[in-house]
């Protein structure tokens, strides 16, 4: 598909571009390998991502940062291709306008204040001074650092440095945001704020990739998962889909005052392994090998039995369970 000549101010063409962007994956990784001499970084990785938040999960040395550096154009693959919104880093003046990358490196240009750091980034993007000042203020407000903006970054706490890096990554309103361990060093309040910011950016149509070691945070934030281990792609999809594919049993919690009535009928649904009743008799814990089949079967039962369901959702940390199954298990085996 070719999208040609989209110019500023052309509503129809901008709409066409938006439509094209929405219907196509933002990031396409096709059979990508990266080696550091004889050492494997990542090997033959392929996936594609659209808008929303993707969690990149894997143990230390799995290849998460390599993969992020490759997508962000800081490294070139030995083989395979990577495209972000159809662009490659060979066109830096266009490519890097679409990308914001908060790296793992806790380093900054020497002697700059938080405001100068963001402003310089925007000036490099080609913003005029007044518009750079406005966009800087907006980015600082988004990460709640306006009060300390004129202090040197050297005097910032770890959490503040993490947030100023985040502001630098989002200040130019990129369509693809890559965040390497963005929650490191943040206190619980800041984490909550930053997670809310990620959701806001994703709801605005941005594609966000977040790597984290903290699995329950990934679970909380991500709509989609990419799991890597020892340089290989282990799983790619939404958590329940991966769980189903891997055969890892999933625990589901149902809240209903029909719980006691529901319990025996749950075993009529295929792949249900276990049913537990909540101590208040108004809830059920279902252990199933196939979440999709369970939800389908359960919906049918709800309609035929005329049950009222107050809430339904995963009962345990699904990502952690999948991680244990796919990665920790493999490491123990090896």
């Amino acid at each position, binding site marked *: 598909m070719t999208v040609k000549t*989209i110019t500023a101010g052309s509503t129809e063409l901008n709409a066409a571009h938006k439509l094209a962007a929405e219907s196509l994956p933002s990031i396409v990784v096709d059979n990508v390998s990266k080696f550091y001499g004889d050492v494997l970084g990542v090997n033959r990785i392929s996936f594609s991502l659209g808008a929303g938040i993707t969690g990149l999960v894997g143990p230390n040395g799995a290849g998460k940062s390599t993969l992020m550096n490759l997508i962000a154009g800081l490294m070139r693959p030995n083989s395979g291709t990577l495209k972000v919104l159809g662009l490659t880093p060979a066109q*830096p*003046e266009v490519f890097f306008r679409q990308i914001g990358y908060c790296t793992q490196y806790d380093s900054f240009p020497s002697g700059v204040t938080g405001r100068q750091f963001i402003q310089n980034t925007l000036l490099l993007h*080609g913003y005029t001074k007044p518009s750079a000042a406005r966009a800087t203020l907006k980015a600082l407000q988004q990460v709640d650092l306006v009060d300390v903006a004129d202090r040197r970054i050297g005097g910032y706490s770890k959490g503040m440095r993490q947030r100023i890096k985040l502001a630098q990554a989002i200040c130019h309103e990129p369509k693809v945001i890559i965040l390497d361990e963005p929650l490191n060093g943040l206190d619980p309040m800041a984490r909550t704020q930053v997670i809310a910011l990620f959701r806001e950016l994703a709801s605005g149509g941005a594609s966000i990739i977040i790597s984290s070691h903290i699995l329950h945070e990934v679970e909380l934030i991500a709509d989609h998962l990419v799991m890597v281990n020892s340089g290989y792609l282990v799983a790619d999809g939404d958590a329940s889909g991966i769980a189903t594919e891997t055969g890892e049993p999933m625990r589901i919690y149902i809240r209903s005052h029909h719980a006691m009535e529901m319990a025996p009928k749950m075993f009529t649904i295929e792949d249900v392994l276990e049913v537990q009743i909540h101590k208040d008799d108004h809830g059920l814990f279902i252990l199933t090998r196939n979440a999709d089949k369970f939800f389908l079967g359960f919906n049918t039962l709800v309609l035929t039995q005329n049950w009222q369901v107050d809430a339904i959702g995963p009962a345990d940390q699904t990502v952690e369970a999948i991680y244990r199954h796919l990665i920790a298990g493999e490491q123990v085996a090896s």
Partner: protein
Amino acid sequence: MNISNISTNSNASNEPSVKAGNNNAALLLRQLGAIVRIEINNTLFSKRSLIAYILTLIPIILLLSLAFRNGDFTSTDFSIDKTRRIFGFIYSGFILGAVVFLGSAAIFTALFRGEILGCSMHYYLLSPVRRELIVLGKFLAGLLSAWALFGLTTLICYLLLYIPFGMTQLISDMTASIAPAQMFTYLGITMLGCLGYGSLFMATGLIFRNPLFPVAIIAGWEFIHFVLPPALKFFSVIHYLKGLLPIPLNNSPLAIVVTPPSVLVSILSITVLALCSITITVLYLKRLEIRYTEN
């Protein structure tokens, strides 16, 4: 998918507009201006500028101490002509050979290596700026800083010559055009030296993890240039610079003497060297991958 032309300013009127293959000049100039400003700040107003400042001050302090140490300025052995000749030696041996050379090494190798060692190079590489523009911006910033520091040193040192001879001599030489002609020739040589050495050291700073070794090798090559055979002299920056000196200097007994290149040849040769070095730097930067742990 081929997105041949993208505009990012559909929503915000102040955002920069980019058209692939047809970058608008205003945007490029703004980006170049931003790089030059950031880099001049780093070069002149940060810790890494200390070496350049010290080198700038050394010849000034040295000439000041010499001017006030010798008391018998009325001696017939001590004339302004002889002093100008001595200055020629000091300039070519010390200001050009040490201050401009080492100062350029300090300023220009740090343009890229300083960023890589400080783990901040990725901020440049993640910016939507053509790599050619990053190199050009950094080089211009280094060049302007070097010209400011070492050009000023050259001018001050030349004027310090006149301390023993007083204002009358200075005014007389200035009006007779002897002093301005010599002073601006020295200044021109300094600027040309910064251009040649600077471009070479910028490339060195990007290509080599430890630029000290290549700088030492270049220093050695420049130091022995006078004994090099004529064919090899052409690969020495100092050969072109010394040919421009306003006062012919005595050659060492070991020197292999060749006709000094003309002013035009000297300027062209150093400009070609600078263009080659900048091109190599651009090509290298385009291939650069960030792995700070290796550095």
